[in-house]
């Protein structure tokens, strides 16, 4: 939320300055007429506290004697009485949402006070697309997040700050790696194949080359999330997935402030798998092999390696932010520097970030204001490209390597591969220590706005925005990782996104009751991406690391390029009648280079209306609501998140060396061209109710929405006999319906003690309505080898992320037909007499039924306690990591899971697992490995102590001790129910996949100590 002081004079709400001064003057006059009392003894002061504007009494307002802790509160009628001994005492009158007033008693015995609603309440300004609006005038569903809500939680990224704090916004940390990817969804998932990432707009500039993770979270002044069509249609073809508007900090005139913020946290893996020891493992392996691979298992007691112990570590994260802000009425500044060092909880992984921001606002003249925001960051990632996929991840090898194996086969020589051939991956410790993969990323953001107030009702804004990323990466695959072909390579890329917006705003009040605002925008956005990479093989010397590619015997280069453009025309009309009837209409026309011919153009209208019932006398007479607003909206948004050239039918690169060491370029026909491809569009209807009670002590917002997405950009699979692959088509419909509730309370608010609480609950249902004639779309899948068919499908009537698995029915207790006792038992869904992928059926979804966040802040004197609980209910996770170590499969022959020793034998018939030596294999793609991903988590608990400036003279200090993810309640057996190997840019971002854990990088449990100093 942005508090605007400047808008006070030209916004036609509530108080007008002249009236305000008059009110204060008459209040003072009233006071001076009261009879004076001279007695030194106890004096009883009585009075009434009321709202200045409405004259309504204010129950629960507080009164205290300045310099003491003696106080009182008003009763149900707003009356109070307080005893004083010093006739010269000063009384302090305060109430939430009102400016605090002080009165010298000066002999009075009755002091009535009319409190003035605070400016904040009256002029809360919310940043909306291409402008800003008074919060009270908003007709759309817009949620705001202020840094004060997460101020005592050590956060490295903006997504951490968002998680669990806004109804309708889901944040999932899909990888626990430092700088690991995060999946953020606003109101569910519309698109099957295209991205469902919201649009991020920082200070008016839409991000493309940079992501949310590149922004320095400490620079954020406010975050607004636009959720319904009334709010997002203004972003047209980029609005379908919601829009996150970020406003960065600015300096305040005559208020120089230097602030230092820092924390150190100690991170450990949340939970480890319970694995077999060497003896148990050897016995199980012997049983599976049917021969004594380990001749004397019991002799192995106390030997071998605990691979989890050698791979996971306690890491120490350090974060430092130093900022200075201030300025004059004419020129204001905010400058910050940031450094964070974040080693991962897996050995030899790390990320460091450095960032600098400079926000300057200056008045060039009375009518022209120039704001320039510049941000640069440098990020250094070391071995943290852990995608979570079976092949790349450290995690699956760590838990699947036999405890009988040693790290080294002789001093200084790694035990590269397992003696038994199980698992097929290399020694995880060797891989962790010897791999070398460094990535550097430089982000540059510029947002400059030239604002020209042509008259007091007409203004022009020119916004020029740049977001750019220069990235480079390099790797060395040494002789340990690849004894026969050590190699090295480097790559670099540059991505520039340029934005030019021209905004004309007309804003005028007619006859004191018609508030009309019209906004027109012409905008151009374009992106250019270039990449180049050079790789070598047969590295003759590792002395130069990855710096000397010419040491490679064979070398290859490749390059890539893409470009897209978007031309947009936007109009918005907002009309407010008598401060209570609100209307809004927006229209955006977008032209995109990604489509062909007339399909290039998309049209995105929206309408909305609101009614501030609390302004009506029949509601005011109820004396219940401080605020009551009903609003509704309807509108259309689009999704053009296909990659450039998707319609052109590109050829696939497909090299061959003809048996030599030289790779020759080759091409094969890829997916067919598709000039008829068009926008995916979403029509959203939203109804919302905003309420506040007890003078704002308690407030609630309820929103219900229905989103219908049609013309889905779908990859329709082509039969293998026609060459396979897929073709992008506009097919099908997806519906999202949801209910969002957020409740905020200032339960206690006194000088010494306060308790604020916020609860938000999001519930939504996602359903595939149609697939254009098909009933089911089989998706691609990960962890090939372990998993041999897709375990998730897109099916009509089911949600995205629906699992499609063979129903597991336990274990055969007797021989039955071709099945022998001890074998895993499955439902023969197809009835064809055999068990296989034809027997899969729908088995739950990775989409939660509801998610929630519950935040509590309790302050007592200088102590402050924050407890933040967050959770997810009703989602399933396919735990492929668990499957890989509990049953024999193509990558792991001998299971390592402790529970795997509990297999069926005639003597152990209620065993957890089938007999691993049985004829019929355990089907990995079965419901046996689908687990409940619901969880409730103590995300943050922190205690802070503030030392005010007058104690330390030079600065105010705040010390915070906190813990993150201290407690998680879940049935999930793996490292963490929240992480998943899907939804990563490296593995495909379709939301039709989700809740699939194959060695995903675990999240950490952290203990942190923070320091904040303000000078």
């Amino acid at each position, binding site marked *: 939320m942005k508090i605007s002081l400047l808008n006070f004079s030209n916004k036609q709400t509530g108080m007008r300055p002249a009236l305000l001064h008059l009110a204060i003057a008459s209040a003072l006059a009233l006071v001076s007429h009261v009879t004076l009392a001279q007695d030194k003894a106890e004096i009883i002061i009585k009075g009434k506290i009321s709202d200045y504007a409405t004259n309504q009494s204010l129950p629960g307002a507080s009164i205290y004697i300045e310099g003491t802790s003696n106080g009182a509160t008003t009763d149900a009628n707003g009356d109070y009485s307080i005893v004083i001994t010093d006739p010269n005492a000063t009384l302090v009158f305060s109430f939430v949402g009102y400016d605090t007033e002080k009165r010298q008693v000066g002999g009075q015995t009755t002091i009535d006070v009319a409190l003035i609603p605070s400016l904040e309440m009256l002029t809360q300004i919310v940043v909306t697309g291409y402008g800003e609006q008074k919060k009270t005038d908003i007709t759309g569903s817009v949620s705001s997040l202020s840094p004060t809500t997460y101020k005592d939680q050590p956060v490295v990224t903006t997504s951490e700050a968002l998680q669990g704090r806004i109804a309708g916004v889901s944040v999932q940390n899909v990888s626990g790696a430092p700088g690991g990817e995060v999946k953020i969804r606003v109101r569910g998932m519309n698109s099957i194949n295209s991205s469902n990432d919201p649009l991020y707009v920082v200070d008016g500039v839409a991000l493309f080359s940079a992501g949310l993770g590149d922004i320095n979270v400490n620079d954020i002044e406010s975050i607004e999330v636009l959720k319904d069509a009334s709010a997002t249609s203004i972003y047209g073809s980029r609005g379908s997935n919601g829009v996150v508007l970020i406003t960065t900090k600015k300096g305040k005139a005559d208020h120089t402030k230097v602030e230092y913020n820092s924390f150190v946290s100690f991170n450990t893996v949340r939970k480890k798998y319970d694995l077999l020891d060497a003896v148990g493992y050897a016995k199980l392996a012997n049983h599976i092999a049917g*021969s004594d*691979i380990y001749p004397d298992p019991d002799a192995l007691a106390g030997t071998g390696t605990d691979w989890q112990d050698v791979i996971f570590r306690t890491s120490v994260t350090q974060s430092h932010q130093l900022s200075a802000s201030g300025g004059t009425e004419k020129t204001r500044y905010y400058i910050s520097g940031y450094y964070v060092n974040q080693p991962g909880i897996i050995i030899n992984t790390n990320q460091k970030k450095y960032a600098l921001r400079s926000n300057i606002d200056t008045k*060039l*003249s009375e*009518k022209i204001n120039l704001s320039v925001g510049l941000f640069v960051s440098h990020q250094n990632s070391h071995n943290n490209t852990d995608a979570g996929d079976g092949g790349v991840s450290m995690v699956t090898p760590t838990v699947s390597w036999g405890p009988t194996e040693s790290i080294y086969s002789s001093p200084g020589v790694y035990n*590269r591969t397992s*003696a038994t051939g199980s698992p*097929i991956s290399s020694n995880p410790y060797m891989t962790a220590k010897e791999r070398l993969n460094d990535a550097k990323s430089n982000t540059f953001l510029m947002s400059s706005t030239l604002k*020209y107030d042509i008259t007091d009702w007409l203004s*022009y804004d020119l916004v020029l925005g740049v977001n750019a990323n220069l990235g480079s990466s390099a790797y060395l695959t040494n002789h340990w990782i690849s*004894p*026969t*072909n050590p190699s090295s390579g480097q790559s670099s890329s540059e991505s520039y996104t340029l934005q030019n917006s021209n905004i004309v705003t007309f804003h005028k009040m007619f006859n004191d009751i018609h508030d009309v605002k019209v906004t027109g925008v012409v905008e*151009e956005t*374009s992106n250019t991406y270039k990449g180049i990479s050079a790789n070598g093989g*047969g590295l003759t010397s590792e002395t130069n690391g990855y710096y000397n590619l010419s040491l490679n015997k*064979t070398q*290859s280069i490749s390059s890539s*390029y*893409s*470009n897209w*453009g978007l*031309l947009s025309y936007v109009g918005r009309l907002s009309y407010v009648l008598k401060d209570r009837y609100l209307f809004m209409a927006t229209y955006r026309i977008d032209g995109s280079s990604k489509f062909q011919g007339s399909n290039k153009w998309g049209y995105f209208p929206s309408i909305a209306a609101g009614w501030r019932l609390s302004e009506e006398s029949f509601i005011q007479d109820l004396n219940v609501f401080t605020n009551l607003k009903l609003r509704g909206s309807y509108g259309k948004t689009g999704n053009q998140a296909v990659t*450039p*050239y998707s319609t*052109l*039918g*590109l*050829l696939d690169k*497909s*090299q*061959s060396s*003809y*048996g*030599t060491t*030289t*790779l020759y370029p*080759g091409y*094969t*026909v890829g997916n*067919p*061209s598709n000039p008829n491809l068009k926008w995916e569009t979403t029509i959203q209807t939203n109804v919302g109710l905003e309420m506040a009670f007890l003078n704002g002590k308690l407030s609630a917002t309820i929103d219900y929405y229905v989103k219908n997405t049609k013309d889905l950009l779908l990859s329709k*699979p*082509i*039969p*293998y*006999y026609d060459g*396979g692959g897929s073709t992008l088509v506009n097919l099908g419909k997806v519906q999202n319906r949801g209910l969002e509730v957020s409740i905020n309370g200032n339960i206690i608010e006194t000088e010494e003690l306060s308790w604020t609480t916020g609860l938000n609950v999001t519930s939504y249902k996602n359903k595939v309505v149609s697939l254009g004639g098909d009933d*089911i779309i089989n998706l691609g899948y990960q962890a090939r080898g372990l998993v*041999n068919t897709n375990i998730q499908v897109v099916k009509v009537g089911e949600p995205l992320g629906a699992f499609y698995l063979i129903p597991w029915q336990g274990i055969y207790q007797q021989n039955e037909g*071709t099945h022998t006792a001890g074998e895993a038992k499955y439902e023969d869904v197809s009835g064809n007499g*055999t068990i*296989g992928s034809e027997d899969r059926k729908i088995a739950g979804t990775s989409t939660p039924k509801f998610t929630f966040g519950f935040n509590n802040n309790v302050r007592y004197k200088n102590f402050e306690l924050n407890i933040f609980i967050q959770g997810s209910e009703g989602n399933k996770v396919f735990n492929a990591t668990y499957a890989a170590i509990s049953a*024999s*499969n*193509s*990558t792991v022959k*001998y299971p390592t899971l402790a529970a795997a020793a509990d297999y069926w034998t005639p003597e152990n018939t209620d065993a957890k697992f089938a007999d691993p*030596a049985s004829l019929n*294999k355990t089907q990995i793609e079965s419901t046996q490995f689908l687990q409940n991903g619901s969880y409730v988590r103590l995300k943050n608990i922190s205690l802070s102590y503030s030392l005010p400036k007058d104690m330390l003279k030079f600065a105010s200090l705040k010390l915070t001790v906190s813990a993150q993810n201290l407690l998680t309640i879940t049935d999930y057996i793996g490292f963490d129910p929240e992480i998943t190997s899907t939804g990563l840019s490296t593995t495909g971002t379709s939301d039709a996949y989700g809740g699939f854990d194959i060695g995903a990088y675990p999240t950490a449990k952290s203990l942190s100590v923070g320091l904040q100093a303000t000078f």
Partner: protein
Amino acid sequence: MKKYIAMAGLLFLSFSCSDLLTEDPKASLTTEGFYKTANDLDLATTGLYNLIGLTFNQTAGFASTFGADDMTANRDGNKADWSDFDIFRASSSNNLLNYWWVNFYRTIKSSNNLLANYTNAADATETELNNTAGQAYFLRGMSYFFLTRVWGEIPLVTEPTIDYTTQNASVEAIYAQIVSDLQQAEALLPDTWKDDSKRFQNGVNIAPTAGSAKAMLANVYLTMAGWPLKQTDKYALAAAKAKEVIDNKTKYGYALVDISILWKKENNFSSETVYGIYYNTNIAEFVYPNTNMMLLAYSPQDEGAWGDAYGELNFYKKFPSGPRKEATYQMVYYPGNDPTKAVDYTKTTYKHPYFQKYRDDAAFNPVNHVTSNWVGSHTVPIIRYAEVLLTYAEAKAMADGVDATAYDAINEVRTRAGLKNLTTGLTAAAFRDSVVVERGWEFAGCEPAARWFDLQRTETVAKANSYRDASEQALVGKPDDITHAFYWQPIPIYDQLLNTNLGN
């Protein structure tokens, strides 16, 4: 004030560009502009070798030939999918079944596109056009030859198309297409690629030649003469084509090589290879289809390898001893890669002999049998000259009766194997049976000239399996040489789900 507005206007103008909404994929080739030059044709055929490389670089596709009596697989751990073929219980959703289906059809798709468009290459000489089409016809014909032997009746796609309702073609129609494609290849391909720096390496042709096409055609005719078509008139055609290859072996550069070096890495480029798939791991970036995954696939778990399959006991016992047996099977095993603990196969974990045809590689250390990479560079021969000789011998005997040339052909292979000449005076049928047995020894283990295909065309699958050692994994399905049960695999479930017309 005005100057600021002018500035703003200028900025806006400088930003604008007329082609904001026009796409120009500067770094990517599109189908539209492709096949226009001779160089495009070269890029497209190189792409085909990538696809065919992928098809043969692992055991997954070969699994459908495991029903023969030369190989078997254990079921423990991850081997059940291989074993399912061996014991005749592979279903349409067997995880390995899809591999050849997908990759042969991908090759066919790219060949179809090339054949539909190659004449658009304006600057290509007639030779370049012929060479291009010849390679595409050869690979398409070969792909269908493998596909129909594994699956029988399948979709016959010869043009770039996407059709969700295609019906299966008859086996006759598929063979007619194979013959036509290979005849085209024979006519269009050169005798040698000597002047092509890519397709001729280390003195051998990497790409197929007219000789490869004739040899393939001979194999096709021989198969057509057996089950299921039983067009016995094709024996003569098979013999004639094989003879053309034998008579011109110098021209094409074919010869048998010494058996002791046949499967060595030094022989990766071999005069014995009539057509082969070539791999190399020592390339600048990892291109999976350019590497061969078979070096660990048939080697013992005891030595840290995968052991996807090993030799069937009875077949091994009957296998005539001598240099060929020693080149085919691993004779000495080092459990735990410890040479001081050398044992024979009876002391290995699974007590079966392992094949070593693809094992010799830069990544393999013969001292301790450590394999330091999971991919290698070993060539996979599709047709060896030995097969041409044996095809000739069998076809000649069946077409015109046994004669000296037929004996010469088989004896050339036997001599190289260290065996005596074949008993003289055999009837055509007995001679044919001897050749089939000889082929079994010669191509045992995972060669594309799989024993499975011989058993199938001679309707002896059940018969061969009846000799299965009692200690082997028991058969679940019962193959039948009369009803031909289990002779063909079910069409993979994925395509059956996309096109219900394919159900079988």
